[in-house]
Every structure is written in structure tokens, then in C-alpha cells.
């Protein structure tokens, strides 16, 4: 890896650099006032880097820090998609939030989250990855909490608790990965190459999967998502559901040892992913708010990606990273467009607007010729011909069901404000880019030609699960209101039942502390500690009971 400055390297550095620089400029009054209008421009270096600099690398700091940037194919795909969505969602936000009293604060959180999320796709060393991951994950708190309603407060608290929990899992995993490395801060690839022979392989993998699954929202760690994504302002929801969840995806792509292949871990991940895919559909169809339905759809789709990664890990297939990133890019752009669309096409929208929303929604289920079909086609190989393939195929049925439900709830939602070009244009641009990007990248990512896509068998393979889904939707619609209402975030209710317990625990701690701080108790404890420490020291030294001598 060359440490010399090069154009590609500079672009890489500018990708997180420009958002951070803009954030720093908010210290001065002038730029602060214009911060909101600068949002669309902040991710442009990242977009350029994704287009021009794949394969580029830059060492930001030499040994012993070894902070290193490098852009490979999966990273470049996600970086490009994320940059595009950040930019267009920023444009959308500039207009959508123009009258928001706290827009400057919003822009600051936005830029911090952006910097972290963009950096995440192009860092190559362990420390930088953790730094970028923390920045993206913690700054997103500001986006979730922005509205300051009770619902936002609850969602933000839950988000923070789980994000910190995820950080803790990852930190421990990283520490264990780095232990035994000669360098204080190893390259991710070096550390992962040694993972299969680590004495703590099981523990590290468990912690990694827990940490990243929290971010991706795999069941049962998904509970924060249906709460957090909908409460944010529309463009922030798009960024959260489109981009931030991909932090988990890139994490698994980077940290799972696909080269070595681990069958057990892979199988567990497949099972976890597929269960998530169907569970989220089942809960999602009972939801009423269109944004909540979309959030459940994200959970379900992340389940599919986890299954893809798991299958690749079990096979030991080195293409897995690229394929998973390709699928994730599809979801990134489509889900971003869907959330932006909720802001313009809710309620009685114009027919063409409804049509585009329908196309986008069904794209998630793999509608032929949309990005969804391409993505699903590309990843199928990894599943072989067995039961897992059937389940993955059927997940499209579930998606169809969920998306039809979404379109219906969208039509019944309160009317969106009449949208001007400032909102419509970014929305349409994201929607269009989902098609363009996936078609352009298909040969690169899958290694197959376009011809395979238009073969009738391929089209039928994409279509039958959807038809099945559509057929299933009819009875479901009949049931309509008689479905049980599952609260948003489903299992979180069980978790929140623990809150009083935690309160009791802390009240207990307070009482215990009060007791300990009573003078006679503290005094007696002091004497006790003397005796215990004295005895412990004698035992540590191998001296038995106290003897003269």
C-alpha cells in the first residue's frame, strides 16, 4: 500500500473530510446560517471517489497509528449509493425543513452522521472502522431525537441504549481480534485472516454478529428500528433506513472470514436472517403507519442480506462481499426513495406519483426489470438448490404482501403537503438512480451477462413468488382491521417491561449505598477490608496462617 499522496487517495480523504469540515465551519456565524443549503454538496467528494477511485488507498497516519483508507468494490458500491442518497436527501431536506426552528442543529447531526457513514465504507484499519462506526451510530441519535416528541424521546433513548450495547459488543470483539497482533492497530483484513485460528473464534464471531445485527436490525435486536426510523423527519428516515443500517452490512462484509468459510457460523446467520425476513413481514402487515411498515420492510430485507452473507460464509465463497453489497445498494436506493416518497405521495396523490411508489415498493419484492429482480437474481447462486433457496424465494412473497399493505396504508394516510419541484426532483432522482445503478453494475457484481436477466425462466422465477404474494394479499385485506394490533417495535414491549425492574435495581442500589455510607457501617467495612486484604496478601504470597517469622 503506497503512502504517497495521489488523486484517488485525496478523494478518499475528502469523502468524510468535507462533511467534517462543513461541520466545523458551523462554529462561525456565517457558514452556520447557510449550513442547511450546503448539505447536498457535502457528499460529492464521496460520490466522485466511488466513481473514480475504486482501488485507491491512502495512509492517513503511519505506524503506529496506521489509519488507512482503501476502497474496494463492495465499498465503492455502497459508498456511491450512500453518497448519492445523502446528497439528494440533503437537497430534499433543505426544502422540507426550511422552516424548522432547529434546522441548524439538524444539519450538524446530519453532517456528523454522514461523515461517519461515508468513512465506514472506505476505512481499512480496525481503529478507524470503530471510530467511523461510532460516529455514524451515535450521531444518528440526533436525527432520531430531532422532533422532541414523547415518541421521539422514547425511540431515541432506546436507540441510544442499543447502539451503545452494540458498541460494547464490537469493542470487545475488536480488542480480542487485535490481541496477539504485532501492530497495535491491525488492518481489518490481516486481523480477519487470523480469525479462524483464534482461540476465541466463537466468542469473537458471536460478538461481531451481535454488534452488527443490532445495527441491521436482525430479530430480536430489531426492536429499535420500527420506533426510530418513523419518528425522524422524512429525509432523516430515508438516511437511517437506507444508509445507517448498511453500517451493519459493511461490518459483516469486512469482518466475516469468507475466504476460510465457517459452516456453523454461516448456517446460524442464514437461519437468523431468514427468520428475520419472515417475522418482520408477519409483524409488518399488522401495522398502520406507512413509515412503520417501511421500517419493518427494512428489517425483513436486512434479514435477507444476513442470509446471503451467512450462505456465503458457509460456502467459503469470496464473491459474497460483492454480492451482498450489490443487494444492499439496491435496498439503499429503493428504501431511500420510498421514504422520500412518503413525504410527497401520501394520501390522495397524483396517479403517476402513486405508480412510481408502487414500482419502488414492488421492486423490493423483486419485480421483473427493477433493481430488486437484479439483486435477487445475483445472490441466488449462493443458496444452492436446497431448502434455503426456497425460503429466500418465498421471502419475495412476503415482501409483496408487505409492500401491497404499505401501498394501501400510504393511500389511506393523511395527505402529504403539496410538493414542489424541490421535493419531487430528489425523490425521482433517487428512484431513477436505483434502476440505472443496478443495471450498470449488474455484470460487474454478478459476473453474468444481461442476457440471463431477460430469459423467460428468470422472469418467471422472479414473478411467481410475487403472484403468490398478491394472491395471499386478498384474504389478508379481507381480514383488514381484524388483525391483532401488534405495537410498534413488537418485542420491545417485553423489553420495556424490564424497565420497572431496572428501576427497582437502581433504587436497591441507592438503598445499599445509603446503608454503606452510614458511619458505623463504613467504619466496620473499613476494618473488614483491612483484615481481608491482609489475609489475601498473605495468601497471595503463599504464606499460610499468620506466623512469626
Amino acid at each position, binding site marked *: 500500500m503506497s503512502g504517497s499522496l495521489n488523486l484517488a487517495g485525496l478523494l478518499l480523504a475528502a469523502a468524510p473530510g468535507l462533511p467534517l469540515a462543513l461541520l466545523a465551519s458551523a462554529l462561525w456565524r456565517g457558514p452556520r446560517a447557510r449550513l442547511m443549503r450546503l448539505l447536498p454538496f457535502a457528499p460529492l467528494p464521496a460520490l466522485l471517489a466511488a466513481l473514480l477511485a475504486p482501488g485507491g488507498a491512502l495512509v492517513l497516519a503511519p505506524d503506529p497509528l496506521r489509519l488507512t483508507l482503501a476502497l474496494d468494490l463492495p465499498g465503492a458500491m455502497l459508498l456511491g449509493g450512500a453518497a448519492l442518497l445523502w446528497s439528494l436527501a440533503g437537497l430534499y431536506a433543505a426544502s422540507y425543513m426550511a422552516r424548522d426552528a432547529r434546522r441548524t442543529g439538524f444539519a450538524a447531526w446530519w453532517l456528523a452522521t454522514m461523515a461517519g457513514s461515508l468513512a465506514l465504507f472506505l476505512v481499512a484499519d480496525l481503529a478507524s472502522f470503530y471510530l467511523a462506526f461510532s460516529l455514524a451510530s451515535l450521531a444518528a441519535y440526533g436525527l432520531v431525537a430531532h422532533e422532541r416528541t414523547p415518541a421521539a424521546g422514547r425511540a431515541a433513548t432506546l436507540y441510544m441504549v442499543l447502539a451503545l450495547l452494540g458498541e460494547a459488543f464490537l469493542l470487545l470483539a475488536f480488542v480480542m481480534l487485535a490481541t496477539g497482533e504485532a501492530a497495535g492497530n491491525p488492518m481489518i483484513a490481516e486481523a480477519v485472516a487470523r480469525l479462524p485460528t483464534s482461540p476465541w473464534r466463537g466468542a469473537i464471531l458471536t460478538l461481531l454478529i451481535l454488534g452488527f445485527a443490532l445495527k441491521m436490525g436482525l430479530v430480536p435486536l430489531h426492536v429499535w428500528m420500527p420506533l426510530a426510523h418513523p419518528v425522524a423527519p422524512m429525509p432523516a428516515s430515508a438516511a437511517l433506513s437506507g444508509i445507517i443500517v448498511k453500517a451493519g452490512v459493511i461490518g459483516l462484509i469486512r469482518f466475516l472470514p469468507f475466504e476460510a468459510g465457517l459452516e456453523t457460523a454461516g448456517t446460524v446467520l442464514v437461519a437468523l436472517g431468514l427468520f428475520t425476513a419472515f417475522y418482520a413481514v408477519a409483524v409488518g402487515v399488522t401495522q398502520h403507519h406507512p413509515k412503520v411498515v417501511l421500517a419493518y420492510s427494512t428489517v425483513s430485507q436486512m434479514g435477507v442480506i444476513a442470509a446471503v452473507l451467512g450462505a456465503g460464509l458457509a460456502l467459503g465463497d469470496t464473491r459474497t462481499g460483492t454480492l451482498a453489497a450489490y443487494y444492499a445498494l439496491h435496498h439503499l436506493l429503493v428504501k431511500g426513495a420510498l421514504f422520500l416518497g412518503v413525504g410527497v405521495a401520501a394520501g390522495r396523490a397524483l396517479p403517476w406519483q402513486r405508480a412510481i411508489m408502487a414500482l419502488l415498493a414492488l421492486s423490493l419484492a423483486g419485480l421483473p426489470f427493477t433493481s430488486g429482480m437484479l439483486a435477487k437474481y445475483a445472490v441466488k447462486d449462493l443458496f444452492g438448490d436446497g431448502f434455503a433457496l426456497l425460503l429466500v424465494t418465498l421471502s419475495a412473497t412476503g415482501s409483496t404482501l408487505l409492500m401491497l399493505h404499505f401501498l394501501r396504508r400510504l393511500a389511506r394516510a393523511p395527505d402529504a403537503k403539496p410538493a414542489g419541484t424541490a421535493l419531487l426532483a430528489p425523490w425521482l432522482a433517487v428512484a431513477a438512480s436505483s434502476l440505472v445503478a443496478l443495471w450498470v453494475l449488474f455484470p460487474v457484481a454478478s459476473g453474468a451477462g444481461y442476457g440471463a436477466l431477460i430469459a423467460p425462466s428468470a422472469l418467471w422465477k422472479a414473478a411467481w413468488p410475487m403472484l403468490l404474494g398478491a394472491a395471499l394479499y386478498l384474504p389478508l385485506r379481507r381480514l383488514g382491521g381484524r388483525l391483532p394490533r401488534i405495537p410498534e417495535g413488537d418485542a420491545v414491549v417485553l423489553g420495556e417491561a424490564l424497565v420497572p425492574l431496572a428501576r427497582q435495581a437502581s433504587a436497591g442500589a441507592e438503598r445499599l449505598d445509603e446503608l454503606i455510607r*452510614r*458511619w*458505623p*457501617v463504613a*467504619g*466496620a467495612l473499613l*476494618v*473488614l477490608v*483491612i*483484615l481481608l486484604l*491482609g489475609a489475601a496478601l498473605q495468601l497471595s504470597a503463599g504464606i499460610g496462617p*499468620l*506466623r*512469626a*517469622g
Partner: protein
Amino acid sequence: MSEPFALLLTLLVLLTAGWIVTVRERRAAVFGFIAYGLLLALVWIRLAAVDVALTEAAIGGGATGVLLLRVSARLGSIRGMSAPPGLATRWIAGVLCAGVSLALMALVLALPDPAPSLAAAAMEPIGRTGLGNPVTAVLLAYRALDTFLEIIVLLLALIGVWSLGADRFWGGEPAAWRTGPPSPALVFLARVLPPFGIVIAGYLFWIGADEPGGKFQASTILAAMWLLAMMAGLAPPPRTGARGLRAALVAGPLVFLAIGFAGLWWADGFLAYPDAFAKPLIILIEAALAVSIVAALALMVAGPAERLPRR
């Protein structure tokens, strides 16, 4: 003196200590404590540490005793620092403390024999200091920094005591005893004792260089005489903001530091004395320290300012 005496003394000390801790009355405990201080002085004599015995009698018994008497006389009922402990707490505490005592006894018996000692090391270079009393040599030459900081501790405690006064009285006079006019007996004592006290103090100070005795013991006696005069109304307590008093307080440390730093030029370093002048320099330091100690001890017992400063 023989072993039975030591045994008797041990029993007396322990019994008095136990009595102080268990007796109901606060005032009785204070009187017990004064007696305890005198017993301790005897223990120190029996341990052949006459310097310490004098210090213990003067400060441990005398100054502390006067202070505690003054406090217990004025102290009203105050909120306890904890609820009176129950029987269980007392038992647990008792067992634990007995454990510490027993462990300590075992450790005392386990101390090496022959005991390590710096006595020879302390005597060897004592000629360079010109002193005859090794304890003074330790205090003012070998471990002079400790002694310097000890004076700072005194000053700090005095500032701490002063800081507890009210803002408006800052710099004013302490009211050592508030209650009524002094008794005739006290006035008589205050007239008769000081001349003797001053003579004894001067003697102790002078011999301190070579024999047991020294600045602390002498200063304490002087401070006691001054307090006696204040209590009897014969000498007005000084204003805590008075220039002279402040100068007296810092005289000791400053002289100490000045001579210490001068050591950089005329000897081998900070706090080193040139061999030829060591004894006079040490006596000069002791004299300056004594001034500060008398002022600090007396005013610490007198308490914070409680009368308006006279302008």
C-alpha cells in the same frame, strides 16, 4: 523502674482508653483523656524517649487538653454523626477491632530481632551538625523537610480554624472564653505562672540542641502561658489580621527557607548547612520556628475571630 511497673502502666493505659470510649458523659471522657495523656507521658519515659515524653505532656496532654476543655464547655447538643449503633453493630465492630488488635500483636511479636535501627547512622555524622541531641539532629538536619512541612501543617490548620469564623469578623479578635468574667483563681494563676513558664521554656529551648527538649516543648509552654493570660483577661487576644501576628506566623517558615536556600551557595545544596556554622544556624531556625509555633498553637486553641476587628 521494673517490668511490673510497665505492666501496671499498660493496664492503666488500656483501662483509661476503654473508659474514655465507653463512659456516657462527654465531659467525663474529656477529663479521662487528659489523664490518659499524662499516663502516655510516663510510657514515653519508660520507653527512654524523653523528648517525646515532653512533647506528649506539653501538646498531647496540655494543649489538646485545654482545647478539648474549651470545646466541651461551649459545645451544645449537636446532631450525632450516626444513629447510636445497635447491639449487633457494636458486637460486629468489637469483633473486627479485636481482630485487628490481635493481628497487630502477632505482628509486633514477629518484628525482627535484633531490630533494624538508624541509631548508629544518625550518630555517625552528628558531628557535622554540632548538635548533641540526635532527635534534634533528625528533626532539623536529616529530615528537616518533614519539620518544615509540619510547621506548614500548623499554619494550615490555623487558617482552617480561622476560615470557620464569620466573614464580618475576619481579621478580628478571637474570644477564647465567652463565659463571664474570669475567676479570681485563674487570674492569680495567670499572674504567678508565666514568669516560671518563660524560664522553663527558655531552658528547654536552650538545652534542646544537646539534651532532650527543644522548640516544640518550649513553644507549647509559652503558648500555654499566653493563653492563660488571655483567659484571665490580663493580655488581650491579638487581632488575627494584625500585621505583627501575621509576620510572626510566617517568620519560622521563611527563615527556614532562607537558610535552606542559602545552603545552595555555602554548602552542598538545599537545606544543607556549612559544617562550621551548622549549630548556630540550626538554633536560629529553631528560634524563628518557636515564634511561629507559639503564635500558631495559642491562636489555634483560641479559635476563630469572633469580635469585630478594631480599625
